[in-house]
Every structure is written in C-alpha cells, then in structure tokens.
C-alpha cells in the first residue's frame, strides 16, 4: 500500500514538474492560429501604441514585439513564421505549445527576453539553463519587470514598459534609472 502511494506521489510530482518545465496551456509543441495575422506594415510606434491600450498581449503580439526589439521590424507574414523565426534563434522554447490568441504570460515573456538579450543571470540560471521561473526572477531582479508570478498574463501597458526597458538595455547594457522597477521578485 505504502509503495503504491509512493509511486503515485512520484507520478504526480513528475507531472507537475513536466508541466512547469514545458509551460502550461496545451500539449508541448502544439500549435494554434498558425495563420493569425497582425496589422501589416506596422512599425514600432504604431505597434506600441496599439498594444499599450490592450488588456492582455497575445502571444502573436508579444512575438512581434520581440522581433521588433531585435530587428527593428517584423517581417513575418503570420504567427507560424514569427514562431519559427524565434525558434531559429533559440528565443522561444520548442517544447512550448503555441497559440496566437492566447495571452502571453510573464514567465514566457521573461524567458524570451532573457534569450533575446542574452542575459546570463545568477547561479541557478547559469547551471540549469533558461527557464521561465528563473528568467522572470532574474529580470525582476534587474528591474525589467515588476513583481508578480510567472503564470499571470501581462497587460499591454506593462508590456510596452518592459519592451522600453529591454530596448534601453540592448542599446546601453543597463536599464535606465528612470524606467527601472525597484527590483526583487
């Protein structure tokens, strides 16, 4: 009896660990809304303005933001191209499930930014490699993101603020004091 309970505990723990590692929200690698479109020819001022008023930021928009941060523009025609472009640069985790319309979480955004900006982080992040949890903690520590847990969705205004900090970091190597959050998870 005890052995069975023990086995069950191990299975549950493994399932929880797997879901945490892979990210919740669908089977790993699944894809929804591959052809989802965003406004064509949108430049970063328009994009930021549009997103700033949104209650949530979709994965599609978040990935456009990351591409604009890196390249100054988003040349992808649809969500799938966006994901592939980021996968190719190791910015998104290929084990994630993707859904164009689903709001992006703080954990995913932190993961993408850590990878995009090549933020090394502390001991655990260095030893274990990037994970949503520790990327988020690192970015909170560095003043990119305000406190909050990794599964919460990010609002448009906050996304714009985080992108502005990331943009400054990319150009100067630090988050300007005037934009910095207080730090700490």
């Amino acid at each position, binding site marked *: 009896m005890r052995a069975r309970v023990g086995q069950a505990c191990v299975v549950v723990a493994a399932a929880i660990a797997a879901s945490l590692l892979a990210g919740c929200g669908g089977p790993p690698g699944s894809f929804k809304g591959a052809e989802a479109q965003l406004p064509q020819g949108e430049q970063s*001022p328009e994009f*930021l303005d549009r997103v*700033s008023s949104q209650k949530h930021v979709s994965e599609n928009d978040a990935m456009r933001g990351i591409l604009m941060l890196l390249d100054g523009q988003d040349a992808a025609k649809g969500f799938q191209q966006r994901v592939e472009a980021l996968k190719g640069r190791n910015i998104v985790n290929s084990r994630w499930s993707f859904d164009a319309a689903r709001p992006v979480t703080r954990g995913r955004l932190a993961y993408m930014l850590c990878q995009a900006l090549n933020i090394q982080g502390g001991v655990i992040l260095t030893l274990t490699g990037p994970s949503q949890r520790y990327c988020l903690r690192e970015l909170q520590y560095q003043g990119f993101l305000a406190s909050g847990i990794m599964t919460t969705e990010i609002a448009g205004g906050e996304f714009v603020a985080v992108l502005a900090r990331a943009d400054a970091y990319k150009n100067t190597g630090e988050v300007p004091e005037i934009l910095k959050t207080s730090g700490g998870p």
Partner: protein
Amino acid sequence: MPRVMSFVCVLLAAAALCAADSPAKQPTTAPAGPQDAKADSPDTKAAPAGGGKVTVTEVSGLAQKCDASKEPVKWEPLKVGDELGEKAIIRTGLSSSAVLKFEDRSDVRIGSATKVGISEFRKDGAKVKTRLGLKYGSVRAHVHSERGPADFRVTTPTATLSVRGSILDGSFTADLGSQGRNLQGLLVLTSALRQQMINKGEGVSDNHNLPVLAMLSQFHAQMGDKSGGLTQNEIQSLLTNGGGRAGIGGAVPGNRSSGGPGTFTPMSLVRGPGNTGIGNEENPGWP
C-alpha cells in the same frame, strides 16, 4: 477648479449662441467636445496669450506625429524642422527619440517607446505656460528659467511633474507609475495623495499607489452600492489604505472600458492633476 471654469465657459458660450438666435440646425449638431468648448470660450478669445512655436530639432529612429485637434486623426512621420502646435501628439518607436524645442524657453527630449502630447504651450506676456501629457514612456525636459518665468508641467495618468527652472527626467510606465528625477533646480510631483518637492539629484515616484490601481484594474469589486460598484467612502479607503480590501468579492471584468452602471474605471479615481488625455482636464483622450 479648472473644470468648473470650463463648465462656466461652456454655459456662457451656449447662452451667447442662444442670444444670437442661432439657426435651428445648431442645437441638433453633436454636443461640443471639451476642445470645442475651449475654442469657443470667451476666456480663450479674450486672452492675449498666443500659442508658441514648437520645433522638432532632432529625430532618431522612428517617430510619428498627429494633430489631435483635426479629424480624422492621421499619423505622419516626424521630421526635423517640423513645427508643432497645441494638441500635437508624438509617439516614438523602439530605439528612437526626438527633441522638441519650445520657443525660447525649454527643450524636451522624448525617449524611445513614448507617447506624449502637447496639450498647451502659450506665451502670456513674459510667462510661458507649457503642459505636456505623457501617456507612456519617458521625457527629459530642460527648462531655461533664466530666460524668463516658465510654468512647465508634465502630466501622466497618475501625477503631474512641475518643473521650476530645472532639468527633469520624467517617465510613466503602466507597472511602475510616474517617476521623476530632478537633475537641476526644483521639481514638484503632485499625485492624488500627496505633493512632494524634489531637490536636485533626488528622484520620486508614485508607485506606492500602484498596487491599488493594479488591483482595481483587474477587479470590479463587488462591495458597496447596489450597482456593484464602490461607494465614495470605499474608494477613498482603497486609495488610503492600500489594495487589501479590493480583493473582497472581486470579479474579473469582461471589458473595463465598456462603461455603464457598476463599471469601475480605476483611473477615474485619481482625480488629481493627472490621468486625462494629453494632460489637461478638458482633453477627451487619446486618438
């Protein structure tokens, strides 16, 4: 107080129209917006003050402008040499910036990922009155008070930063609120809860308000009056005591901006100097 004044102005303007026996069509037109009301107000007509000249002296990366007083609103690329008037709105993209020169009195550098509007720039004799509305992003203003008296303010959705002969760094981000850093001279931050003077080298923010605002933006607290909103006492209590009580009976809203009875718009709580449009109380909002 300015709201009361503008309301009185609207009433006066309406009375003048009636007295002039305006055509029957006149009253059937859409209600005059606050901007229209301001344009018609006797105060504005009588004022000797004139709109100053704002010139774009530097643009880097992608920046766009629009004139919010014109319909339809049309965004155009911002170029060096452009002259902007009141109600001009500027937005910059990533890795972009722009510098505006406000005729003989101040320079403003608009940082990347910023949206800012010129709600007022007027010369009244020697005094220059400047009001900027910062929706998001950051600005650095250098007010040359040695050239004459200046009343320079940057209004964010949660606070107003008043510059008195100084160099100011100001920002507003949705997760952090308003921040100001005084690089020279004197800076005053006025938010719903307090007014604070900041000396050279000091910084200030109103982010202590934010847990309340953040929570309110996520919740329609279901306590209080019959319509499901909050009583004035509860609103004041939330603002004074923090966000703890807002969690009681909270429900995730469908659409916060939908309006209607019981709809709770957190920014409307902060009836301080900030929180409206491009920076003045009369402005209807952003295009």
